[in-house]
């Protein structure tokens, strides 16, 4: 029925909003909705054809109504598609801001899957990515844009923590080996399970990346 798939797509988007990760891109549904729009457009053209440009809605209310329904359906489908893509791109942007490398994670997931599922699914691997190729491209360009904007505020570090800073120094525990970092008080070697009292600004990045845990 008209708009059914569009509705499904919106429900998908709604679900996506409350998920922590991004579910796979619904290529089939997006295609189906686009096809529906094109078919509706053809219908409209077919209905209008016999009138040869001189259609008068008040003399033909039934035809006018059919046209209106078709038009509204097309617009609605467009809105559904836009909403679906917007929710996903918002999510991707959020990941860019919080410093998660989306593309790398994708690649990791794919290789994990390839390892776990064995050779049976190897062939299907190309399509198991949860991003569409367009989205991957978008993420790449958006990270560039973000980096460019961020670059103008070198002293501020725009992607830094949005929690008001309380203490200059904090206790951290090392969760993963992170190698040696340079601070103004000398070099610290971060080995797993050790604890340090360090300047927050020096280790913020590492906390965000999951190498360190903040102890309160």
């Amino acid at each position, binding site marked *: 029925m008209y708009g059914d798939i569009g509705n499904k797509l919106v429900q998908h988007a709604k679900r996506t909003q409350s998920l922590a990760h991004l579910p796979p891109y619904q290529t089939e549904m*997006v295609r189906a*909705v*686009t096809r529906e*729009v*094109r078919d509706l*457009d053809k219908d409209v053209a077919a209905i209008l054809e016999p009138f040869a440009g001189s259609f008068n809605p008040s003399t033909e209310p039934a035809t006018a109504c059919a046209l209106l329904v078709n*038009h*509204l359906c*097309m*617009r609605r489908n*467009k*809105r559904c*598609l*836009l909403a679906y*893509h917007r929710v996903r*791109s*918002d999510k991707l*942007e959020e990941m860019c801001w919080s410093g998660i490398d989306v593309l790398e994670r994708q690649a990791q997931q794919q290789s994990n899957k390839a390892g776990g599922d064995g050779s049976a699914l190897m062939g299907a691997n190309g399509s198991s990515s949860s991003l*569409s190729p*367009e*989205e991957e*491209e*978008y993420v790449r*360009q*958006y990270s560039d*844009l973000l980096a460019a*904007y961020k670059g*103008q*505020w070198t*002293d*501020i*570090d*725009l992607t*830094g*923590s*949005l929690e*008001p*800073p309380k*203490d*200059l120094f904090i206790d951290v525990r090392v969760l993963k080996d992170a190698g040696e970092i340079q601070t*103004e008080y000398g070099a610290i070697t971060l080995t797993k399970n050790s604890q340090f009292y360090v*300047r*927050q*600004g020096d280790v913020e990045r590492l906390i965000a990346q999951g190498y360190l845990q903040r102890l309160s």
Partner: protein
Amino acid sequence: MDIVDILAEVDADSIPKETRDLQELTRAWVAERVAPELLPYPDSLIERVLERIRKQIELVEEQTGNMDPRTNFKLIIIQTELERFKFLVRSFLRARIKKIDAHPLHISNLHSLSPLLSTSEYQYLTQHQALLSQHYASSFLSQFPAGLQRLDDTTGGTSMIDKPDEDTAVFVRALRDVGVINVEGTDRSFEVKRGDVRVVRWSAVRRSVLAGDLELI
């Protein structure tokens, strides 16, 4: 002019410029986070603050080698202050970016009427918009009938240009006597005196806030 006004004037002059900038920055930060729409970009204020942040960073870098406990202690205070300043600016800019991302077309229209964004913010907005429309186009929109490909369509009953809700309630405190404020669309009006705190529709107090008579809290 009565005694309160005179006192207020003396107050404003005796506060050092740095403190006033901090006050202004804090005010701008709170306002930006509370107001439903994007407020004009405080160009000179941000520039002054950034300049000062840079100087402090230089100072810290210069003095780090010093092992004298007294300067060391002073450095810690300076660095704490520095972190707080950075946080204010960061949070302020992020709040703006969030609004810019939420209503890009609306804001870009407003910006062309009267400047609202900084140059880099405007760059960000246009480029982000270009990226998004390219993304939509390559994902599905390019296969649509030509009449339906626009992203800023206002026909058909629903405008595609999303606007912030200008009638949201905000908390304001009066910094000066403002006089009578009328709430548009209702027959409510009330007088605002210095120090009063009110909950009002944003649209009713927008002008006084921008003029600096009221502050958002």
